[in-house]
């Protein structure tokens, strides 16, 4: 009898222990998720998505931490040095390319092959370095035009420019008639690809910038600069275009629609004179897209769970819900087709109309950054060379030759 009782107790203990063991194994799959400056504004949304994910995947627990955007790179480097990179990371495109090239991220072409065709192809390639994609695109914004109807009317125009040539013609009239700028040049590395001039070859092995088209563009920029059409401070990044727009020093400005409201805060009267239009597409009919990416660390001990969560976070349903909270766009085709994005079509409010136009521009949106590790340095080389041409009268052909040589040294 006693023996039977003892056996029962042992059996009960074994069962309890085995359940506890299974429970501890399931709870052990914890993943850390870092976002950039989304808390506290989007706490409810992010926590809601995490709760839904955890409900669908009872064995996985997600620990969310929000990192201020300004210190994101330093925090990531510190975490990497301490071998404590989060499993899932929200990264900007430049930093992502660097990390991908150094082998710090999981290859998403393989890990997320099943969902690759859910995303816009031009946006999917934001995570590409040396032919491999290291992230899933998350929320995005593309650039379009906010323009001052009054200033254009005073200069004799009834609408914003639609081609590059027209935009410079209009800039000339605006400057000579009103002393106001039109086109400005801030990031030449994003202007050149719009006209078919790419900084590096498609295989990322050599510089591709030194072309007759690039030479023509450099010469034209020099001509416009000498006419006074390109302001120094904006060229050198020492002033903010959106502030100059609010001060009516420029008649149009190309930026994401989420920034239009800044004009309303700074100068309500200017905002009420404003409307939104398509960005000038250039000969390639593309607009640049700013992508926030989600990547998985290659050091993650729970890569499968991390990839699963990255896919969940960026799926159509969750991206659509996120887009409805603020002026961002989804990178997933299905979410972008929702009727929500046609709501602002007839709006007279610049930001609402801008949101509609941004969604319409998705078909032209593509990541215009060179898909190589040293993209930041390459962009600086090209921008420095055009500045030498404009500010210091360097020969455009020589500038392109130097840019080509310096880029090749980096590749």
């Amino acid at each position: 009898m006693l023996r039977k009782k003892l056996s029962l107790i042992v059996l009960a203990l074994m069962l309890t222990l085995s359940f506890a063991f299974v429970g501890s194994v399931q709870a052990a799959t914890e993943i850390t998720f870092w976002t950039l400056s989304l808390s506290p504004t989007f706490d409810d949304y992010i926590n809601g998505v995490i709760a839904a994910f955890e409900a669908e995947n009872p064995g996985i627990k997600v620990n969310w931490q929000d990192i201020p955007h300004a210190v994101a790179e330093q925090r990531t480097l510190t975490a990497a040095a301490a071998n404590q990179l989060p499993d899932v990371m929200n990264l900007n495109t430049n930093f992502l390319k660097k990390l991908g090239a150094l082998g710090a991220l999981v290859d998403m072409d393989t890990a997320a092959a099943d969902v690759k065709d859910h995303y816009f192809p031009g946006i999917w390639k934001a995570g590409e370095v040396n032919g491999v994609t290291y992230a899933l695109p998350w929320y995005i914004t593309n650039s379009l035009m906010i323009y001052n109807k009054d200033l254009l009317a005073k200069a004799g125009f009834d609408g914003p420019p639609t081609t590059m040539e027209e935009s410079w013609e209009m800039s000339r009239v605006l400057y000579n008639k009103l002393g106001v700028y039109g086109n400005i040049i801030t990031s030449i590395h994003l202007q050149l690809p719009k006209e078919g001039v790419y900084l590096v070859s498609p295989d990322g092995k050599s510089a591709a910038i030194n072309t007759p088209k690039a030479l023509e563009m450099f010469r034209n920029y020099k001509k416009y600069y000498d006419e006074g059409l390109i302001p120094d401070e904006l060229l050198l990044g020492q002033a903010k275009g959106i502030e100059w727009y609010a001060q009516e020093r420029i008649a149009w400005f190309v930026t994401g629609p989420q920034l239009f409201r800044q004009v309303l805060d700074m100068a309500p009267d200017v905002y009420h004179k404003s409307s939104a239009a398509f960005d000038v597409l250039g000969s390639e009919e593309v607009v640049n897209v700013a992508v926030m990416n989600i990547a998985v660390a290659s050091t993650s001990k729970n890569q499968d769970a991390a990839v699963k969560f990255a896919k969940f976070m960026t799926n159509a349903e969750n991206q659509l819900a996120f887009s409805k909270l603020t002026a961002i766009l989804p990178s997933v085709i299905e979410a972008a087709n929702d009727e929500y994005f046609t709501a602002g079509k007839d709006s007279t409010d610049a930001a609402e109309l801008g949101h509609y136009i941004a969604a319409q521009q998705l078909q032209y949106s593509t990541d215009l950054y060179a898909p190589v590790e040293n993209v930041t340095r390459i962009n600086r080389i090209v921008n420095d060379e055009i500045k030498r041409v404009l500010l210091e009268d360097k020969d455009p052909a020589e500038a392109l030759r130097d840019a080509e040589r310096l880029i090749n040294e980096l590749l």
Partner: protein
Amino acid sequence: MYRPSHAWLFMAPALIIMLAFSIIPSFMALGLSFTDYNVFQKAQWVGLDNYRTILRTGEFWNVLRNTLSYWLLVTPVLVTVPVFVAALVNREMPGIKFYRLLFYFPVLVSVVITALIWGWMFQSNGILNYLLGLIGLGPVRWLTRRTTVLPSLALVTIWQGLGYYMLFYLAGMQSISLDVYEAAELDGATNWKKHIYITFPLLRPVIFFTTVISTMAALKEFTLMMTMTGGGPIGASKTVVYLVFEEAFENLEMGYASAISFLLFAVILVLTIINKTTLDKEQE
């Protein structure tokens, strides 16, 4: 009863903090400067390669030239002008504390706020060009030309540092015994002569101190360039520390960046030794 171990006990907290956050990291950085290290992969020993590459590339010499030019623009002014400002406010008169505060006020403003305010003033349509326009001058391209950018940035540093260095001189002047001045007065010395023969010679240790401090500050300047010009136009205001930042945190070349830091350390060390030996010789 006093024992030497008590002194160590009192010094221990500061010593531990210094060891943990300054001395040990410095030696680790020195070690790092002989490696190729990008944080994500293991450091690889490369010997003196980083130093050789730095000395071969034009960019280091360009930023070193910028840094030394900036130092020459800033330090002589910050060593000499505050002496006169201190002499000016080192007197008893109604409201003198207000004047002292007025000179010291810029020190209290953060560098980023200073950069923003001066950035607006330096704009092509800013107040400085407006004022110059009133007397038929300008416009000056303060921050957008190679020739003007460093003097403009130096002006901001001088504006901000004047009160800080004035305070050291003021403390130095107030520690000079009044008896010495009274004796000089009895001998018929004028105010100017009292400064030349008493104040300035007795301020020699303070002058050495301000020279060293302002030299180090000028050679390590970075925030102002980062916030006002981004190192531009075309690298014309990029300093050595700016290059260290770029190499370390943009290009992830930690070993290379550490090597640049140690070259800057060597430059500062040499300048400090020259300064000290010059002053020591004069004193002898």
